[in-house]
């Protein structure tokens, strides 16, 4: 598992990661979501021991990344951003090299390499030079390298960037499969990615975690963003007045004779469908359609990261 407490990392005067705390438990896939330059990579580099923290504590499998750097790295698999690999090495030699450094020997090393070739479906590419591989295969070699020693903690920096849609689905499935027993932290700037792969999302912006939760709770967290589409026949003004406490009218379109199409934006967190129905009955009108549209994560993301920008500029 990964435990990050009040982590701060600066580069000169700029604060790349600012007082960040979070946890990744075994069996959990956590998506690190944020725009480019938000501090995702820096935080991951600290977790993998590539950078030292300036403040705060980071523990991986209970060991401090600063004090027990080597043993932390032994229990951790890391896929760096853009998958840097030794291009001149054949895939199989590269995996053998990584395995040897990881302390695997002889029969054990051979069986692990075979397993990795199968798990990451490297089959026919195993004897080619890494430099000759396509982006998708490269990424799989990167994953194979990280999984080589079967570590309990995995950190992937933008594992799907630069891949085509089919490859993205494959990599995503692979992460889901291996994520059943391991603690996985992966970063992305694509919302859809985080939503589909992770159990929990951390939204980071300007070095700070601005929101945290499962994809569902996260969209709910940004309160009052639910939108109701209502088709109503009757006194629209009276209905709106009656619901003024709960909802705010944000649009009205008169299309059909007698039926007003109204858009209402919720001010509170709860579901107000029943209140709308009651209000419609109370003002003596008729309700034909009542549709609730939950706030999409896209809106949440934009809202959160934009907020951070304003803060950053101030």
């Amino acid at each position, binding site marked *: 598992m990964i435990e990050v407490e009040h982590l701060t990392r600066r580069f000169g005067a700029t604060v790349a990661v600012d007082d960040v705390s979070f946890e990744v438990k075994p069996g959990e896939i956590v998506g690190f979501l944020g725009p480019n330059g938000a501090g995702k990579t820096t935080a991951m*580099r600290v977790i*993998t021991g590539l950078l030292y923290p300036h403040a705060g504590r980071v523990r991986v499998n209970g060991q401090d990344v600063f004090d027990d750097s080597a*043993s932390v790295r*032994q229990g951790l698999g*890391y896929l*760096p951003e853009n998958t840097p*690999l*030794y291009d001149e*090495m054949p895939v199989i030699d590269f995996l053998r090299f990584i395995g040897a450094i990881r302390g695997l020997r002889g029969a054990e090393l051979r069986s692990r390499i075979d397993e990795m070739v199968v798990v990451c479906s490297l089959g026919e590419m195993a004897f080619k030079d890494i430099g000759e591989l396509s982006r998708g295969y490269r990424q799989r070699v990167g994953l194979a390298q990280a999984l080589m020693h079967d570590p309990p903690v995995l950190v992937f920096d933008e594992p799907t960037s630069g891949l085509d849609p089919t490859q993205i689905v494959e990599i995503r499935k692979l992460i889901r499969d291996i994520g059943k027993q391991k603690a996985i932290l992966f970063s992305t700037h694509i919302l859809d990615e985080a939503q589909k792969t992770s159990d929990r999302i951390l939204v980071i912006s300007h070095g700070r975690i601005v929101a945290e939760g499962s994809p569902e709770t996260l969209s709910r967290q940004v309160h009052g963003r639910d939108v109701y589409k209502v088709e109503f026949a009757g006194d629209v003004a009276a209905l709106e007045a009656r619901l003024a406490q709960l909802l705010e009218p944000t649009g009205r379109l008169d299309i059909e004779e007698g039926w007003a199409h109204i858009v209402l934006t919720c001010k509170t967190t709860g579901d107000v469908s029943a209140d709308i129905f009651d209000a419609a009955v109370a003002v003596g009108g008729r309700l034909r359609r009542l549709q609730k549209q939950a706030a999409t994560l896209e809106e949440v993301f934009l809202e959160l990261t934009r907020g951070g920008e304003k803060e950053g500029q101030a």
Partner: protein
Amino acid sequence: MRRALTIFKKELKCYFDSPIAYIFIVVFLVLAVWVFFRGFFLIGETSLRAMFVLIPWLCLFFIPAISMRLWAEERKAGTNELLFSLPLEEWEVVVGKYLAALLVYAATLLLTLPVAISVSFLGNLDWGVVTGSYIGALFLGAAILSVGTCVSSLTTNQIVAFILGVIVVAGLMIVGEPIVTMFIPSSVAWLVPYAQYLGLAQHFGSIARGVLDTRDFIYYLVLIIFPLYLTIKAIRARKVA
């Protein structure tokens, strides 16, 4: 230690899987042997002096060419990030890489041995001096390689690493030569022996004559260990900065 050995093997394979090592060995040998035999039959002396006189100058250009890629390439490709996410200590990587490059150079030196053997058939070759020369050449190359490794760890550009390496090594070579020492003003004449002691080639010269002086070996050992230590420091510093 085992992991340093794994790094060593990987780097060595890298040199010999690409044309770098072969080009290095062939060009080095052709230059050394050609220059040597050009004058050999004119002078008519069964000694390898003419070849070993050339070695420092060959090393000046050839060794930065093997050391330039050691770290610059790694940083350029970003593979250092991959490398240091593995459970490795910095010194294991630095030493492993250094020894692989040193072996390329040592192999090249060894390949000049047929010249020595051929010459020994033609007359009475002093094997003591020849052995001394080889030991001197090995230490000289090892020191230059260490400086080159250090320079390579400071940049992401291999060409810059090469040129800077040549400049630093040239500086170390020239500092003990009369061309520099003659410009030291007489008021600080006590500096002259120090400048001479700092010069790379002087120590090679005395070992090559067959004089095995501990001062020369201490000089070379310091020049091997200190730049490697700086390399480790430079890599560590990047984690903190």
